[in-house]
């Protein structure tokens, strides 16, 4: 990196404010988690996080979060496409509702979704006809997580799609490509980095989601018990070391996910900007 003199003023001030708030709100608290866990021996940590029940909860959390984010990836791209490319009645309303999961308290969402998808609820009854149970199963968890993750992919893809120059599609069209080919070969590569970023954020958020899931999950060990709930129950057993060790695993997972999305963005930036 070149060391050029900074022309724009305020580096010290803005960096100082940024770092102090960041430190106080994010870094110190996160570090305290690490410090606390570090009081355990490494072997104990490993032993704690590899208990069958905890491994099972990782499986449940990661699997449902992954499926939910995958559904959101596909639906997010479709929604973004529809909202950017088509004109139809009530579009503004549809667009405006996307952030609802951010705004609606997760507990309210959980309670409501549970009452809708339980055997007695509107959807529970309907799917019950086909013998599909939603509430208190992994499907239920997935439904709650889909709800939580909706805004991420849509809001990541939408601006990219809006800015996408029409000439790319026209160029492909003139060259004889069909609509589906244009979409998959030309448009999709353009929006994929954004979509994957959204996917990563949704995935990270879903793994850790608690409020909406506890109501709908059923919480049965090995079946529908999610990791955040395990952390909660470890806390209630005054087992701080276990809780923090498991939390640390989740935290590392968050870091890895963010790191991966950053990598994707860096790779696409490299292709787009050509700074090799």
């Amino acid at each position, binding site marked *: 990196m070149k060391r050029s003199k900074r022309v724009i003023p305020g580096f010290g001030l803005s960096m100082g404010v940024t770092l102090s708030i960041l430190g106080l709100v994010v870094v110190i608290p996160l570090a305290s988690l690490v410090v606390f866990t570090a009081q355990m021996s490494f072997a104990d940590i490993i032993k704690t996080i590899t208990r069958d029940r905890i491994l099972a909860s990782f499986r449940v959390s990661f699997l449902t979060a992954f499926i939910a984010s995958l559904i959101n990836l596909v639906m997010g791209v479709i929604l973004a496409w529809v909202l950017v490319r088509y004109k139809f009645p009530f579009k503004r309303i549809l667009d405006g509702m996307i952030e609802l999961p951010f705004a609606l308290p997760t507990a309210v969402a959980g309670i409501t979704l549970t009452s809708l998808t339980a*055997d007695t609820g509107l959807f529970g009854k309907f799917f019950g006809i086909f013998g599909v149970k939603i509430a208190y199963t992994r499907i239920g968890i997935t439904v709650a997580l889909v709800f939580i993750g909706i805004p991420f992919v849509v809001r990541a893809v939408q601006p990219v799609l809006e800015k996408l120059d029409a000439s790319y599609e026209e160029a492909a069209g003139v060259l004889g490509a069909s609509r589906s080919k244009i979409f998959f070969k030309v448009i999709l590569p353009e929006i994929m980095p954004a979509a994957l970023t959204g996917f990563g954020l949704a995935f990270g958020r879903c793994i850790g989601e608690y409020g909406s899931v506890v109501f709908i999950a059923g919480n049965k*060990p090995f079946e529908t018990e999610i990791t955040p709930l395990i952390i909660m129950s470890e806390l209630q057993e005054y087992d701080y070391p276990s809780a923090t060790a498991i939390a640390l695993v989740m935290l590392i997972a968050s870091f890895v996910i963010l790191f991966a999305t950053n990598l994707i963005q860096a790779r696409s930036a490299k292709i787009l900007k050509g700074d090799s």
Partner: protein
Amino acid sequence: MKIKKALTFALATVLGISALTACSNTVSENSDNGGSTPASGGNTPAKITLTNVSYDPTRELYEAYNKAFQAHWKEKTGGEIEISQSHGGSGKQALEVANGLEADVVTLALEYDVKAVQDAGLIEDGWVSEFEKDSSPYTSTIVFLVRKGNPKNIKDWDDVVKEGVGVITPNPKTSGGARWNYLAAWAYADKKFGGDEAQIKKFIEALFKNVLVLDSGARGATNSFVQNKQGDVLLAWENEAYLSIQDYPDDYEIITPSISILAQPSVAIVDKVVDKRGTREAATEYLNYLYSDEAQRIAGQNFYRPSNPDILDEFKDTFDLNVNLVTINDFGGWDKAQETHFTDGGVFDQIYEG
């Protein structure tokens, strides 16, 4: 140049931090209006506030009791008293107190949870004998709540473990009430199989095979059973079961099993907090008054079994007094019960992991 930059930087950092702490200071003052300030002087203060950290099913009980106590306090001292309630899973509540939630008194589901607060250094040893009846002013037990007409014909624990019966109970790992459920079932099996541990475990295993939803708290379990109509039988606190009957008299019935457990919720003064806030007198009176006839009746009206036998007798039409109740001492006390059954890798984990 470098030094100047560093100075700006340091200044900014200090500014940022002081801004933040300034915020939190104002906030904490806000939150405390009428909190810790009074009660330090010797004269009767204008208003005292107490925080009672309790567990889930006592909401209605303390709502009624607090009113009665306020009247009593006024009569006795002429002063006003305000009581802030906090409810939640018993274990979680204990943990929060241990972590700094400022509670003057705790009224939790089990002795074990109060002990956790004690272990944090907040409650002095010997609290169990500080109040009458091992500091449990009221007791309860575990009963079955079934749907009206008892379609699955559930009479006792044996019927609960039958195949095809859907059971709702909270998770013993996270819910105090659920531990009572578990131990009650264990007590029954213990008697049935004459202490044959392998068979007892099998029995408990069969019970949890039938569990459809394992909510994290007693109230969540009741919601699953009552609101979302899951399962055939809810293993519930006696008072919870009666509350549901009160709300939906046409939908549910209570079945009392032949053997259950005497659940003794514990109350205690949080010494560190009351000393700091100067509320010991009020807190002691608050818990003492729980043993008064008035309070005992309030407990009975809220479907808790009064610990005063005379008052309990007044409610003999409500409670099935013939049930054979074991106590936690039959399990060697809470520490042992916790160690054997509920710690990680304990019997409960073995049931699921095995």
